[in-house]
């Protein structure tokens, strides 16, 4: 049962092969057994999950089920969840039980899905290894001495270890795609504005976007159907007619299902010199995936994203700038952590924030405050915004000659715990392939494309604005012709 996809579980529930209570119990037992080792969940509350499962079974009995009714899902601890501890991976919110639901949670609740628990994450989503969590590092189920990626590392590890059939993540610079790549999952970051940010604790508001993490493109489509939608409480949410993201998956196009699809290969990833930015093993797997796409009928197009190399520096100005301001509300005054002893107001602020935030969060607040400060704003923040526009323009030009852009998700497979913790710049370069997509606000996916020394590698697919359905189909066709995404880790049985 636990190896089934979300759509298969949905069928099993529909045919009464299993009840939601039984299914939820099954996953809760696995969590109880494996979470102490993997540390994928910060909070599990079986009585809450089972109550939801029971209600879902009742809905189904009443004939009011949706495809996700009764499906247990893991929720990243960045989503405010009513009655649940919502920590965002930080000591700062170690006592914060949310009094309200994020839009994403509301939508899953309305669909009758069950919350299995809240997953571990890099503190305030700042990290690429899940080592910055106040609640401890998460282990990669493919090799427990390695990181699962981040910041949605808990969600990735939970799904990879079969502690949940699917999970939510958020992606500011690669936080869905990179852990998906490192844990052999399919993850989708939608176009900015497709999923409401209401109730999703902000890291960098102009870049944050929530999306699904699962074993297949099909499952991601199913989850996205529930997550997407206009929300008047988020001014950056886009008011578009609802769409069925699964709609292209069922069409049968015969032997060459992707005939006519133009896949862009950026020189900045695949040029002779540029290839060295990625580990040769991963590059080899990406090359093999490209060959597979040709088999499926796709045509390859050389493209260029000339400003790609500026994306990491621009990102590390814009994201910390927004974060430094977004995190100001964590001041110990109204909720969250307050230092036990302090002399006066400023001392209370200083101590509460010094003790409540971890080192990486403090580093980014400092960088952000610096780049926004008087006399530096033009040189850093404004300049970074100009670069951001150039990068977006590069993509607009590229999508005139291709439909999808392809490349590696991460330059390497999962690295060792602690290996990069002391070197922030090395850590920041983990997201070199994913960051530009956030700066441009485009949809991006990572899908499994093979193994290097036993560790999974991810293939990144980048689409034009609002092309999620097409992107999911491009991923789905590859998954119909490959089995990488069906591989499961041995370390967790």
């Amino acid at each position: 049962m636990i190896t089934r996809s979300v759509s298969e579980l949905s069928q099993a529930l529909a045919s009464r092969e299993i009840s939601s209570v039984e299914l939820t119990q099954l996953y809760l037992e696995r969590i109880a057994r494996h979470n102490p080792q993997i540390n994928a969940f910060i909070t599990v509350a079986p009585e809450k999950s089972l109550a939801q499962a029971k209600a879902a079974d009742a809905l189904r009995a009443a004939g009011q089920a949706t495809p996700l009714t009764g499906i247990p899902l893991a929720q990243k601890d960045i989503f405010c969840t009513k009655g649940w501890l919502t920590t965002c991976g930080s000591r700062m919110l170690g006592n914060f039980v949310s009094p309200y639901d994020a839009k994403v949670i509301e939508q899953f609740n309305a669909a009758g899905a069950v919350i299995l628990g809240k997953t571990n994450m890099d503190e305030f989503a700042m990290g690429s290894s899940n080592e910055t969590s106040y609640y401890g590092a998460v282990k990669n189920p493919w090799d427990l001495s390695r990181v699962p990626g981040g910041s949605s590392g808990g969600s990735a590890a939970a799904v990879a270890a079969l502690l949940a059939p699917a999970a939510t993540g958020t992606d500011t610079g690669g936080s869905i795609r990179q852990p998906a790549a490192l844990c052999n999952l399919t993850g989708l970051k939608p176009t900015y504005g497709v999923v409401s940010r209401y109730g999703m604790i902000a890291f960098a508001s102009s870049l944050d976007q929530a999306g699904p993490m699962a074993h297949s493109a099909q499952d991601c489509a199913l989850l996205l159907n529930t997550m997407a939608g206009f929300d008047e409480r988020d001014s950056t949410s886009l008011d578009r007619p609802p769409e069925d993201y699964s709609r292209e998956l069922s069409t049968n196009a015969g032997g060459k299902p992707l005939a006519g699809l133009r896949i862009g290969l950026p020189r900045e990833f695949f040029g002779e010199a540029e290839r060295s930015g990625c580990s040769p093993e991963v590059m080899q797997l990406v090359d093999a995936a490209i060959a597979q796409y040709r088999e499926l009928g796709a045509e390859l197009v050389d493209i260029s994203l000339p400003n790609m190399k500026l994306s990491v520096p621009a990102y590390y100005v814009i994201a910390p700038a927004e974060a430094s301001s977004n995190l100001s509300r964590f001041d110990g005054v109204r909720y969250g952590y307050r230092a036990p002893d302090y002399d006066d107001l400023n001392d209370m602020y200083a101590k509460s924030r010094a003790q409540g935030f971890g080192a990486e969060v403090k580093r980014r607040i400092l960088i952000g405050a610096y780049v926004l400060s008087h006399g530096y704003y033009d040189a850093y923040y404004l300049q970074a915004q100009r670069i951001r526009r150039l990068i977006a323009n590069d993509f607009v030009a590229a999508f005139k000659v291709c439909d999808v852009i392809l490349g590696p998700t991460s330059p390497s497979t999962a690295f060792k715990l602690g290996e990069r913790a002391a070197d922030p710049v090395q850590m920041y370069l983990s997201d070199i392939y994913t960051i530009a997509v956030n700066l441009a606000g485009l949809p991006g996916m990572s899908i499994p494309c093979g193994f290097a020394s036993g560790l999974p590698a991810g293939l990144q697919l980048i689409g034009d604005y609002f092309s999620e359905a097409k992107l999911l189909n491009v991923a789905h066709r590859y998954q119909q012709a490959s089995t990488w995404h069906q591989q499961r880790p041995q370390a967790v049985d």
Partner: protein
Amino acid sequence: MKQWEVVIGIETHAQLLTQSKIFSGSSTAFGAQPNTQANAVDIALPGVLPVLNRQAVECAIRFGLAVDGQVAPKSVFARKNYFYPDLPKGYQISQFELPVVVGGKVTIQLGEGDNLTEKTIQLTRAHLEEDAGKSLHEDFNGKTGIDLNRAGTPLLEIVTEPDMRSSAEAVAYAKALHALVRWIGICDGNMQEGSFRCDANVSVRPVGQKEFGTRREIKNLNSFRFMQQAIDYEVQWQIAHIEDGGRVEQATVLFDPDSGETRAMRSKEDAHDYRYFPDPDLLPLVIDRDWVERTRAAMPELPVAKRDRFVADYQLSAYDAAALTASLDVADYYEAAIAVCGKAASKSCANWVTVDLAARLNREDREIGDSPVSAAQLGGLLARIADHTISNNIAKKVFESLWNGEGASADEIIEKQGLKQITDSGAIESLIDAVLAANPAMVAEFKAGKEKAFNALVGQVMKATKGKANPQQVNELLRSKLG
């Protein structure tokens, strides 16, 4: 001794009359129990987001049109970052580089009567922003309490050029602006509740010098009287300080109404670096022509236009017209009264509204909006003066009766109390005969050349008619009888 010129610029925070807050759905009503009007957005829970209130934007557009400023087709909300317990997000959402209104002007009047002069004060800008909450010091067993009811209340910050040259001009500007924001219905102007508060930037320079002196900003002036006192004190202080060989340092100062003095709160060195940047949670505010035009169509006639029309249509003096257009309520009242009594009585109507009614309202501390004598009632009364049914003196009695609710109209009261003027000359003549017969001494005095005695005799006749005779008619008849 050197002659000094005073230079003043004013920043005003006008609280906008919206039902709900600028970025959340909470009510903005004043005086509720602490924190009962603060929702998840106002207390800045993790994950919440701001959504702009269109009503607040509408207010800004109205203001832009009223001051003949430019309503920006695109403006941007920015975050002003600083820590304070009553600022829940750790930043205030305001507008910085691109405000919603650019430029504009407010005309002020100085002096009275024949010495009335006008001056135009240029506005730099007006921008939308949210208010902070309140820190309630020493209210909770020595601890500071935080009330976030006010957090997120919409404000329009209105900034002038340094165009004012005296405290009188500054107060005239503040009063004109105060009347204007109420006139166009965007602010209730309640200064005690903080709905309209001014900061004054004050500097002095030797007459003839081109460069401005260093300014000090007097914060939170919440009455016109305090504004005048604070600026006067500040100007004297700056002049004395410079003449004593000192230099004015840029600073923020507070006015203490008890001592009548200003004192420095913080100097430029402690100025915050607010790290302004565009708020990524809000899209740029785009106001298209249509929105502006729709708002323009719904605008009331503005004070200056109305004043000019009153002068032209009703032959009023500039002074009367200004008094009648001090607020929209007064102007509306006046025109509603004229609609009943007719334009011929426009001058007497102006007198009644600005003198008699104003004094009576003032005595009971009432606004014209809840005057016991309605405009229609006053118009009815003025019509009876105009057609000589009653005299001006009797009219005052009728007015008092209307005020006390003794009748529904002037006509009813005149009828009920028998106040109709006696115009039958036969009736008056027989009364005169009786008075002359009863006062032979006065008649003799008059005949001996004492004009005073004539007036006394008129008084006697008026008394005999209980004031209801037409005094002019009495005069004429008496003179012919004595003649």
